[in-house]
């Protein structure tokens, strides 16, 4: 029980330490910041070890090792050694003379990312959004939907025109691009306004922590 109380005191003091940044930079904030950096680096190191390294690498290899010892069979889990190989290449950066070998691992990562995201974005960001925009401009007897559809089609169309790089924004093309910018602005404003709610609730959460969990002023 007392451990909990000490814990809340620690948490509350660190909370105030971060908030003190709003006034100005000060040793209290610097301490909280330094502790945060250290603790979080440790946190992710531990998480990486137990939740990535062990299950993805160690467990897979020990599985295939057991299979080899028990049945003399070479099973497909050995393939995770390739990942380990690239991982070790990364660590070779610590040896200046052969550090350049780490670029092989970078090349593998960058190639994978480029290939994966090529199709992923074209599909989910490109085609899905295009399909979503194909709507009839006039829907019989439903003025609201008609207006909504017209706005979506016009907004997407002109917004996309804004992004053209190889045409000068002049004349009718420039006019369309201008309308496109209006839609982008409405999008930004709306997203901003929408997010305010969520940001305020974060602060409410912290205030509640201070006033009810720590000071017990609110029951």
């Amino acid at each position, binding site marked *: 029980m007392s451990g909990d109380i000490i814990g809340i005191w620690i948490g509350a003091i660190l909370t105030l330490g971060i908030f003190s940044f709003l006034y100005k930079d000060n040793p209290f904030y610097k301490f909280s910041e330094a502790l945060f950096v250290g603790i979080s680096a440790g946190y992710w190191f531990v998480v990486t070890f137990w939740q990535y390294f062990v299950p*993805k690498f160690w467990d897979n290899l020990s599985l295939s090792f057991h299979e080899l010892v028990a049945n003399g069979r070479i099973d497909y889990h050995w393939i995770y050694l390739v990942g380990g190989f690239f991982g070790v290449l990364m660590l070779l950066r610590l040896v200046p003379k052969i550090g350049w070998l780490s670029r092989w691992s970078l090349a593998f990562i960058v190639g994978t990312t480029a290939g994966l995201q090529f199709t992923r974005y074209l599909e989910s960001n490109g085609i899905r959004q295009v399909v979503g925009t194909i709507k009839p401009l006039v829907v019989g007897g439903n003025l609201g939907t008609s207006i909504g559809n017209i706005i979506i089609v016009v907004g997407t169309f002109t917004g996309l025109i804004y992004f053209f790089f190889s045409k000068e924004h002049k004349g009718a093309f420039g006019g369309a691009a201008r309308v496109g910018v209006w839609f982008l602005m409405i999008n930004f404003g709306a*997203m901003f306004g929408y997010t305010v709610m969520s940001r305020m609730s*974060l602060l409410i959460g912290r205030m509640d922590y201070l006033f009810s969990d720590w000071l017990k002023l609110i029951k």
Partner: protein
Amino acid sequence: MRREVPLVLTAIVGITMIIAHFLPPLNSLKDLFEDWFFIIAAFAIILGILNLILVNGNNIYRKQKGWPFGVVVILGFLIMTIIGLGFSGGKSFQDPGTPFYYLYTNVYSPLSATMFALLAFFVASASYRAFRARNIEATMLLLAAFILMIGRVPIGYWFSDWLGDALGKTADWIMDFPQTAGQRAIMIGIALGVVSSALRVILGLERTYTSGE
């Protein structure tokens, strides 16, 4: 070897990933490569940690300005790591009752949540500065933000059910139509940007990170 292997490797892996998307027997390559990525990242984190210790250790050694905070960074890291790896029951290090869980809930979590909560203040100061009706574009930004801010909370209901409903509905309408339209244009543009960058990377046109020396 130094120059060619990375370029060729990037191209081969990239093209394989694209093709694998269309050939069902190769679909699982994606999962495998992602697992490999996690393994590489897990190895690589050691580089980052060494760098962190080196930078802070250096500050302490040379007694540079603010060096005591370097001590805090290194101590924080060591405590969390030693407890997490050695004294919190291995894989179940996140279970309630472990020392790791205690540090998580009482140190990591409050720091993280408070940092996030600073946004409440910054949202206010940024909107005060940025939302001025300077021209048509800025006015649209301002109006959309204003209506959404009012419409999303039940302020209108203080006065009357009707007003609350009308404000909420206007806010929903903006989100559903003009907002969606702008968002779509951005997203489609991004799709093409990614496709083009990915292709430049695969073709070896943008290769700053794998050539040289």
